[in-house]
């Protein structure tokens, strides 16, 4: 920079030399070349480059916004899913409880019914047994009676021959009847 300044001062004091150095032809060429380059590049390079870059920047911006939106949507969906899952769980639990209750009820009902039936059967059996027993007892009684009568007949036939014995027998019989 110092050298530049020194050079500048040296040259400014010598403006004539600077003007002498000025080449009009070069100035014309430079202006033409530069303007040509400016127009060509503006059309074929700068405009497409800047619009492509801008387009890309907009795309990036839009994509970021879309990503944020998608994230928010995703979160909403997840929250929704959670809620639905929770609801489903609750419903399932309720259903299960109800089913359990129903099955318990059913089992109890069945048990009760079975018990009633069993009791009924048992009662009927007991009654039948009792009847059979009574019948058997009656039967035995009848047989015993007829046997007794047979025996008594034979005994009486033997005993009745003697008065004393008759009396004894009657007494005995009466006693026996009293016992019964």
């Amino acid at each position, binding site marked *: 920079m110092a*050298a*530049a*300044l*020194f*050079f*500048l001062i040296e*040259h*400014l004091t010598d403006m004539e030399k*600077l003007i002498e*150095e*000025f*080449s*009009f*032809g*070069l*100035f*014309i*060429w*430079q*202006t033409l*070349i*530069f*303007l*040509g*380059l*400016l127009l*060509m*590049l*503006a059309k*074929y*390079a*700068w*405009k*497409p*480059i*800047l619009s*492509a*870059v801008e*387009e*890309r920047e907009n*795309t990036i911006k839009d994509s970021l916004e879309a990503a944020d939106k998608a994230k928010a949507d995703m979160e909403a969906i997840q929250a929704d899913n959670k809620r639905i899952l929770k609801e489903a769980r609750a419903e399932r639990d309720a259903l299960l409880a109800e089913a359990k209750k129903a099955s318990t009820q059913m089992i109890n009902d069945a048990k009760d019914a079975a018990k009633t039936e069993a009791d009924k059967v048992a009662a009927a059996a007991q009654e039948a047994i009792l009847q059979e027993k009574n019948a058997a007892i009656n039967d035995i009684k009848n047989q015993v009676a007829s046997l007794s009568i047979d025996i008594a007949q034979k005994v009486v036939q033997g005993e009745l021959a003697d008065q004393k014995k008759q009396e004894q027998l009657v007494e005995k019989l009466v006693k026996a009847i009293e016992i019964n």
Partner: protein
Amino acid sequence: MLALLCSSFALAETKDGAKDGDLKTEIKEYIAHHLQDSYDFSLFSYTNDQGEHVYIGLPLPVILWDNGLKLFSSSKFHHGETVANVDGNYYALYHNKIYKTDAAGTINYDEDHHATNSKPLDLSMTKSVVSMLLVFAIMFFLFKNLAESYAKNGGIASGVGRFFEPIVLYVRDDIARPNIGEKKYKKYMSYLLTIFFFIWFLNILGLTPLGVNVTGNIAVTFGLALLTFLITNLTGTKDYWLHIFDPLGSTMAWYAKVPLYIILIPIEVLGIFVKPFSLLIRLYANMQAGHIVLMSLIGLMFIFKSWLGSPLSFGLAFAISLIEILVALLQAYIFTMLSALYFGFAAEEHEHH
């Protein structure tokens, strides 16, 4: 650098037996010659065993308007050593300018030792013009490719464009937007981008062994600054002109403003011209000075010719080259930045006043 070294080396060798004073003069002349534009694209020159100057490079077309178009190759001048005869007219090179002369190439001088021969209108394709055309081609190819790569690559730059795209964005986001404003920056973008890369590439080209010095040429920087000047003032809003011709606005009664404005308005009007003038001088002086320092340091190597001095000046020249690469970018940035700033003044619109 290499060609410069080669040429300087050749230069030093031929003058081996001569006095140091002669060598210094020759280096000085060599630098002065390099700083100027040239009618042929010479890469390097040397003096052969017969004592003749041999130039390696391309002759370029010379275009003159002297009662009709005169078009001929610069090889006719033989690097200023002969007079060019074109359709019976004679032209000679004197101090890197073309003068109309007689067959012997006589240059007449006035009392201040200025040539009085007539100068035809010179529109030659000089070394600087060719360099600018080269930069034109490079830039057009490079940025057209970048523009096309977006469509091919799904909106993402490919290849070398990946390097240049952030710079384009930097010019947009850090130069144009903050200085001009969100509303109006777009219409200045093409100019800012073109001028930034044009200056940068030309500066860099000046550091290559091609040895061109385009941005260190006053005509080129004048042309660039003139465009900034024209764009600034042609796009100036009402507020911009109001700021120049009525800077105090309604803050003061008109009779109070009159004596102030006798001083203020000329200063403001001068400011319109000083701003672009500072642009042209800054770029010119920086690039010119960079080339002078760099070539002087290279020249020093052949003056010292010692085991200590020459490596030292080589090291210095190398360090300065690195700085010059930075300066090349910096000057392009400053020119673009200040242009944007001036456009910002021109585009401003405000409520008050």
